[in-house]
């Protein structure tokens, strides 16, 4: 037979290999650490629950009170608008930074130097008192006649001052993040777009920016969470965001701790929601890459618990496109 002379084809194993069932290594250190942490946590929970000065009753009473909810809405509103302003300014500054025109580059550098080099609290106060510096804001031809004039005191409400302070400051930080993102995109991408006849702005918007997003999104998520908390500084402008709202309440009833807990609970709820949102946005902009997006902290904790219980490890859902 002719077959006999040929070397046998390497065949795949006919039977599935037996699944390994080994006794896992004992890890006493891990066990002890776990037990200790649980004991400390239990003691903490007990003290928090039984110490009457936490005033949990008051917390429950004010958690959904209209004043607090109104402050919460204003905090969310400030966070969103300030971040949008910050991102827009950041993109503009980053693109300016890469311009062939040295004056444009210098202008962008000066902006970043100024706004990153001074505390945001000081900037907020500056905007609040801007009317003292420029009592009248006029729009018109530079060095020429004014076309419209505004009274700065009417124009710069605490809300506007807050937005200017937070947004302009954020722009300086976002520009660095955006710039790192733009530089992370391979030069060949721009070349290819140019060679196809795409214009500079088209190339930026359609090719470079979307791919830079992968690098831009994670730190922007952190910036947003940071911004959410930084909005509390606006309380010094007497703008009734979440912190100032609870301050107003405890100024009247002297229950500082319970009301600060109310504020903290809402901040925690919002940051948790933001972290979850960030995961999905990262997944969206990660499309087309072979690299899987690492699971979030919550998912990792869940995973390690499930391995302890010897159940299936949940694998993060596949990205679309695969």
């Amino acid at each position, binding site marked *: 037979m002719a077959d006999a002379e040929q070397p046998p084809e390497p065949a795949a194993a006919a039977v599935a290999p037996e699944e390994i069932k080994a006794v896992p290594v004992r890890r006493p250190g891990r066990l002890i650490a776990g037990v200790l942490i649980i004991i400390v946590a239990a003691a903490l929970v007990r003290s928090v629950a039984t110490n009457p000065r936490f005033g949990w009753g008051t917390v429950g009473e004010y958690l959904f009170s209209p004043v607090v909810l109104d402050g919460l809405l204003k905090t969310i509103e400030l966070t969103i608008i300030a971040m949008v302003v910050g991102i827009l300014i950041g993109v503009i500054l980053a693109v300016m930074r890469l311009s062939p025109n040295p004056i444009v580059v210098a202008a962008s550098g000066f902006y970043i130097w100024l706004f990153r080099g001074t505390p945001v609290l000081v900037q907020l106060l500056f905007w609040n008192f801007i009317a003292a510096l420029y009592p009248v804001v006029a729009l018109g031809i530079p060095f020429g006649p004014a076309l419209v004039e505004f009274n700065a005191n009417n124009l710069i409400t605490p809300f506007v001052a807050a937005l200017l302070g937070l947004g302009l400051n954020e722009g300086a930080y976002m520009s660095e993040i955006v710039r790192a993102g733009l530089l992370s995109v391979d030069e*060949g991408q721009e070349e290819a777009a140019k060679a196809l006849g795409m214009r500079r702005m088209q190339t930026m918007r359609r090719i470079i920016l979307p*791919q830079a997003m992968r690098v831009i999104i994670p730190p922007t998520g952190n910036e947003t969470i940071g911004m959410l908390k930084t909005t509390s500084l606006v309380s010094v402008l007497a703008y009734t965001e979440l912190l100032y709202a609870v301050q107003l309440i405890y100024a009247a009833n002297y229950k500082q701790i319970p009301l600060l807990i109310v504020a903290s609970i809402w901040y925690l709820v919002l940051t948790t929601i933001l972290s979850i949102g960030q995961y999905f946005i990262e997944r969206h902009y990660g499309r087309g890459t072979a690299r899987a997006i690492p699971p979030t902290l919550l998912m990792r904790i869940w995973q390690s618990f499930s391995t302890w219980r010897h159940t299936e490890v949940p694998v993060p859902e596949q990205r679309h*496109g695969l």
Partner: protein
Amino acid sequence: MSEPMVKAEAVHKRFGRNEVLKGITLEVAAGEVMCLLGPSGSGKSTFLRCINHLEKINSGRIWVDGDLVGYSQRGDKLHEMRESDVAGEREQIGMVFQRFNLFGHMTAEQNIIEAPIRVAGTKRDVAKAEAKVLMDRVGLGDRLDAYPAQLSGGQQQRVAIARALAMKPKLMLFDEPTSALDPELVGEVLDVMRALAADGMTMVVVTHETGFAKEVGDTVVFMDDGVVVESGDPASVFDNPQHKRTQAFLSKVL
């Protein structure tokens, strides 16, 4: 004979003090396949990039299909073109890169329809239908929805060729299209290029594939140190090189 598709006249290009092109003069006729050979650093890529104005030349002139590249001549003065006009010229010139440069965040189909829709103003469904035809032509009709990272190098390069063809260029530039490929994938890309040449496309190909140059090339140009050392039909350049530098180079690559 009608006007040449590419005409280069005494093209010089410097990077700082480093003169990379030292007076390149050549012509590519419509429908011709010209293969550019030469040692590393001889300026092949730079010359190719000058043809679609990805690099600005320092002196000389390049015309593509009769139009001056990157400049317009008014009277005896040369005016730099506006960016949109340069882009307009580039639409007509397809380019294929050594490292493919497919848009990583887009599927093969999106890569192909992007420029036709955004630049040429083609309707989306028309562009999609054309993308399908082009992908069939490069043998990837079933991979329209694949992202570049999910394709092999050879497949990516074939998509890149389809992407360039989608703008219906009158000239195609290839810069070492197979140099980044595993040997067993080179053939599939060369097959696509061979078919393209047979269809009458004008092509300028920088390549180290002497087999391809011999078989498909109408002209072979040997460059060294920024000048054209020797050119002619493949048979004479390969089998009977006149110049010492050509002989030395060929003895290494053949």
